[in-house]
């Protein structure tokens, strides 16, 4: 059975696409046949983050009836399959969202996991991405505007009959001015399934067009996303941690002259 997981946020700029891209790569490295669909037809960015920009056939072409969805699938880092949304305004004007359903039904046949990157907001395109989900992951930062928009998204999703799997708190900074995990769980009434620390490396990785879990798998941020991927499919994940003991014992050995 294919799992259709939509990643949504409400507010833009909370790291939804970054989480989706990295989670997609993570799931693919665990051996799951993973297809990531960029459903943000107006402000698509997935292809930039994965270094896959400039593909000739995109979701725009599929939704305008000019190509079939199979032709818009490209192989990305770690073997993840990616369907870019397309970035031209021309392309956007020609699309018809009702063609999405047929495209999704084809994707469900070929993927173990279909991961959908939903657009921010609650316009028609966002609602389509949310309604398509069997499982919905909400991404938020620990700030009030972002939580407030996550809550709006949750309410709409429930009205559409979609249950929320959990919340990913992104860009956690351990700053007491902002909301805590407990507070966020209380407000949203859904469990927090991952806390991803803030890391400037994420923007840098995007500049390289390389997802962080590939570029820097040891970073706490990568570990948190790999762990989330493992939890979603019931796998074990052992975080890659710096060998602090090794470093310390070597230091002690060196200082004390022990061999």
């Amino acid at each position: 059975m294919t799992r259709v997981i939509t990643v949504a946020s409400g507010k833009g700029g909370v790291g939804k696409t970054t989480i989706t891209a990295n989670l997609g790569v993570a799931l693919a490295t665990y051996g799951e046949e993973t297809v990531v669909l960029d459903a943000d037809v107006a402000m698509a960015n997935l292809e930039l983050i994965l270094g896959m920009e400039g593909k000739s056939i995109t979701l725009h072409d599929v939704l305008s009836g000019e190509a079939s969805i199979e032709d818009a699938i490209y192989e990305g880092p770690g073997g993840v399959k990616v369907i870019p949304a397309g970035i031209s305004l021309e392309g956007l004007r020609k699309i018809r969202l009702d063609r999405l359903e047929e495209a999704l039904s084809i994707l469900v046949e070929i993927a173990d996991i279909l991961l959908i990157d939903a657009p921010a907001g609650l316009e028609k395109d966002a609602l389509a991405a949310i309604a398509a989900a069997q499982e919905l992951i909400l991404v938020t930062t620990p700030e009030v505007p972002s939580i407030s928009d996550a809550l709006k998204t949750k309410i709409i999703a429930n009205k559409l009959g979609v249950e929320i799997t959990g919340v990913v708190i992104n860009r956690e900074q351990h700053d007491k001015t902002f909301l805590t995990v407990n507070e966020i769980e209380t407000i949203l009434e859904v469990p927090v399934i991952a806390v991803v620390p803030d890391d400037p490396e994420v923007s840098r990785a995007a500049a390289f067009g390389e997802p962080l879990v590939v570029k820097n798998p040891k970073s706490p941020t990568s570990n948190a996303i790999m762990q989330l991927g493992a939890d979603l499919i019931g796998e074990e994940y052992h975080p890659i941690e710096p060998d602090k003991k090794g470093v310390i014992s070597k230091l002690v050995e060196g200082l004390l002259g022990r061999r």
Partner: protein
Amino acid sequence: MSKFVAIASGKGGVGRTTLTYNLGVGMSLFGRNVVMLDLDLVMANMDVITGLLNPDVTLHDVLAKNKSIDDCVYEIEQGIRVIPTGIHFETLRHINPKYISWNKILEEIAEYGDIFLMDMPAGINSNIFEGLPENTEMIIVTNSTMTSVADALKIRILSNELNIQIIGFVLNMWYEDGFLLSVNEIESLLEVPMIGLIPYDREVERSMALGKSVVEINPSSPTSNAIMQLTAHLLGEEYKPIEPDKAGILNRLKKFIGMLPE
């Protein structure tokens, strides 16, 4: 004549609403009558940011229930007027964005101030761009990441198509990082001048959490200075940055050293 300034970004999360709020406070410090409008009908946050939580009448009620716009103009602490958007989905369902006559609404509120800051929604789905008043000046807000500049470019193209005048872009939440796009690179991509460079500062988010703007909480910080500089530029005013008093600091240090035992 009232001045309409639309603040758009394409991408969400680049600090657009926060900047709008800070510009509003800045303009009010220059003595202007400022009205801030939240034109994001679904993911509105201006009520959260201005502490105007759950106001009785919002722009939604004007659009869906024929309420008068006069009922949803609120004045906040800083002396700014705010027209918030509601968060009730029930009301939202009765609104068809296609049939909103923004021109009429914006005419009706003209008496409430001399400068109108319009916080545009992220994305380009809405027809709000098409309904802006004729003399609107647009500011595009971006960060130095590729994704935000790409989305800013889409807004620039759309605005050109709609003959909206763009006065320039603001590079927001900026920090020095050779991996990200430089000012020159962004200028040549967007083909509009940079009118403000606002350094990244966590104080901005912290002051929001305290229900204030950073220009009030920490007016001498580089970020506040940059915002006030941009405000002055938009109003055609002069602004003298608040510089740290280095001579004074040195004197204090000398005094302190003098007190140290020989």
